[in-house]
Structures are given as C-alpha cells and as structure tokens.
C-alpha cells in the first residue's frame, strides 16, 4: 500500500531558482538561505527517506492559468509537465514526470469525497513547483522521483479556506492509503512565508508571526485551520496567503507529527523563507 511518509514545506521564491540556475548559491547573499536546506538534501536521498512520489502543492503564478480559467484545486494527471516560460525563458530544469496512476486515483477519490477537483492534462509548471524541487534535490539530470502537481488558486480572491485545505489534505491521505502499489509518498506545501509584493507596504516581514505559524504547523494545526484569510494578509503581507497551501500538507500527515528540521531566513528577495520537515507519528 502507498503511504505518506513525510511532509515538507518551503517558500518557492523565483529568485531562488535564478540563484540556482546562475550558480550564485554560495555568494554572500544566498549562502545562508541555501545552508538551511543542506540537512534536508542529505536526509531526503537516504534510501529509507527517498520518496517515490511527491504530491507537490503549489500555486500557479499566472503561467498555466490566466484570467480565463481559475480552478480552485487543479490536479495534474498528464504523464509529464514542462517548465513554464515566465518571461525570461523556461528554467533549465528537468521535465517533471508524473505518477499518473496515482494522480488519477487521487483525483477520483477526492471527487468521491466531495472535493470539486479540476483535472488538468496539459499545463506547464512555473517556479512555484520547480523552485522547491531545486531546493530539495539540487541540479540532477532528472528529478529523483515522480511528482504530482496540485495547483491551488491563491491569486484571485477568495482562495480556499485554511479549513478546506486541511480537509483536502485528509482526503489525499485517504486516497494515498487506498492505492495498492507500495510507494513512499511525500506531500509538500509551498509558498509563503511573510511577503508582500506591492505598494508602500511591500517588503513586510513578520518573523514573530511566521515562527508561531511554524510552531503550530507541527503542534497545533487546529488553530491554523480556523485562521481567516484576513489574518494572513494583515500579519504576513498580501502574498503571505500562500501559507494556506501548507495546510494541505499538514492535513495529509494526520493528527500527530514529529518535527525533524526547521529553517527560517530573512530575506530571500522580498520574502521570509520558511522550511520545515515533518514526519507522521501515528
């Protein structure tokens, strides 16, 4: 049976992708940002931890979806996905290979569980999806596992509530656990933490709030699932809303988790970079 073996969260700042692609990860500016991923990079490639499949929860940043199509939850079911051209050419990263059998299974199972999924069979994937892969896996010729893209609308309001995200995570867990193949599956939540990319309030960082979010992600997700959108916006900036996606990861891990690793760094470009690795203990 497939099972969820770990949850990872990470910001997905596009400048991180550029730093990787341009070979700047060891310069003064970037070194401390990347250093916090060293632990994870080693941990994740150990045979007992290496995922067969990552369900990668992210948001599309006006790359695959424009104003003509705004799906709340879109699950990618095609065999592969190419990196998107976001205005400076596609990132030089490997193509994303899907575990299509599992992706379709999750789609079907979640719809039966009354989640109104949109199935997508053709899309390019942007920095929201590829930057976390670079952070966790570096620059391999091919990504070391299959990846199921799960795109969440957090651009046009309203995004899904934190509670809805958490419950989708639970439905994903049920779906994974009913898939017959023996697979180690990780769920990644990406985006966040504090950032605001607009206006006179741009550059807002609320480290205290972010750290409490990280604490409660591990120990008290019940507080987070009830948090209204306005709190994310007030406390963590207009783009801090991306953090609702982390709750899909958390919902998929079950009630109790152990925190294996944490990294928090200000700033990567405009953003507070947050990263956590959790393991279910049930």
């Amino acid at each position, binding site marked *: 049976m497939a099972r969820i073996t770990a949850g990872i969260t990470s910001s997905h700042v596009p400048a991180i992708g550029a730093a990787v692609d341009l070979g700047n990860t060891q310069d003064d500016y970037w070194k401390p940002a990347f250093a916090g991923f060293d632990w994870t990079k080693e941990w994740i490639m150990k045979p007992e931890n290496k995922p067969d499949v990552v369900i990668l929860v992210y948001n599309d940043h006006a790359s695959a979806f*424009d104003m003509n199509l705004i799906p709340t939850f879109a699950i990618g079911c095609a065999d592969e996905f190419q990196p998107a051209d976001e205005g400076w050419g596609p990132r030089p990263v490997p193509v994303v290979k899907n575990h299509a059998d599992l992706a379709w299974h999750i789609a079907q199972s979640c719809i039966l569980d009354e989640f109104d999924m949109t199935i997508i069979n053709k899309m390019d994937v942007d920095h929201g999806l590829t930057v976390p892969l670079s952070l966790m896996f570096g620059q391999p010729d091919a990504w070391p596992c299959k990846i199921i893209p799960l795109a969440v609308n957090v651009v046009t309001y309203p995004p899904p509530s934190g509670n809805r995200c958490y419950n989708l995570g639970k439905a994903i867990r049920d779906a994974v656990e009913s898939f017959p193949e023996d697979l180690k599956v990780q769920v990644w939540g990406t985006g966040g933490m504090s950032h605001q990319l*607009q*206006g006179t309030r741009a550059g807002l960082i609320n480290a205290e709030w972010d750290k409490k979010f990280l604490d409660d992600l591990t120990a008290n997700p019940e507080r987070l699932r009830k948090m*209204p*959108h306005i709190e994310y916006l007030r406390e963590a900036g207009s783009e801090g809303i991306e953090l609702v996606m982390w709750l899909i990861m958390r919902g998929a891990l079950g009630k109790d988790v152990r925190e294996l690793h944490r990294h928090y760094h*200000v700033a990567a470009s*405009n953003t507070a970079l947050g990263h956590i690795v959790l393991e279910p203990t049930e």
Partner: protein
Amino acid sequence: MKQNIHEYLAEFDDIPGTRVYTTARARKGYWVNQFAMSLMKDENRKRWLADEKAYLDEWPKMTQEQKDALLARDYDKLLDLGGNIYFLAKVFSTDGKSYLQAVSTMTGMSVEEYRNMMLSGGRSPEGLRSKKKGY
C-alpha cells in the same frame, strides 16, 4: 463559520497600502493581465520590445490609462488599474528585472535601500496591519 462575502471583502480595504486581487480588480484589469500573459512567448517579447506602442495597439480593449502605465512601467498605478503582480511579472521579466527590483519601485525607496531593508529583517508590520485600529 459561514462568512458573508460582503463582509469578507470589506475587511480587505482596512489593510494599509494593499490592493487585494479581488474579482472586482480582476475584471477591471482583465486586458492588462491578458496582455502581460502574451509576453510568455519569445516572439511576442521581441515584438513588444521592438515597438511597445505598436504592440499595445493590438489590445484595443485596454484603456489608454492602462497603456500609459504599462509604457511607464508604473506598477503601482497598474495595480490600481486591475493589474496583478504575477501577471505583471511577465512585463518586468521581459525587461530583465527581478521581482525585488520591480517591487521596490512601488515603495518610494531606491532598489539599494529596499534591498538593505530586506537584509536587515524587512519592513516591520507595526502600524501597518489595520487602518482603523492603527496597530
């Protein structure tokens, strides 16, 4: 649990210096944002850079105010006119600019000052959470 959508949306106006990308803004900025998406194709980027005004002529449903703001790369104005930062990213990426460079132009700071603020911990949320409550 169930929140009324009007109350939900009204709360957003209480956040200083922030334009939440509501559907009202999305509708207003539809053509600006669709224009920006067109720059995901290299041939369009080349045509845009070669003659910006001519390229804008291909978007008759955009307002002149929106076109002027695009020509001026006035991102703050573009947000007022319904633009969204992720769409507009295609415009500044085509210019070879980063998010940090583009975003800093909206703050009244130089790129260098903004970058240094971020390196020293970013902008404090103190006083920037709510217009009404001023905290």
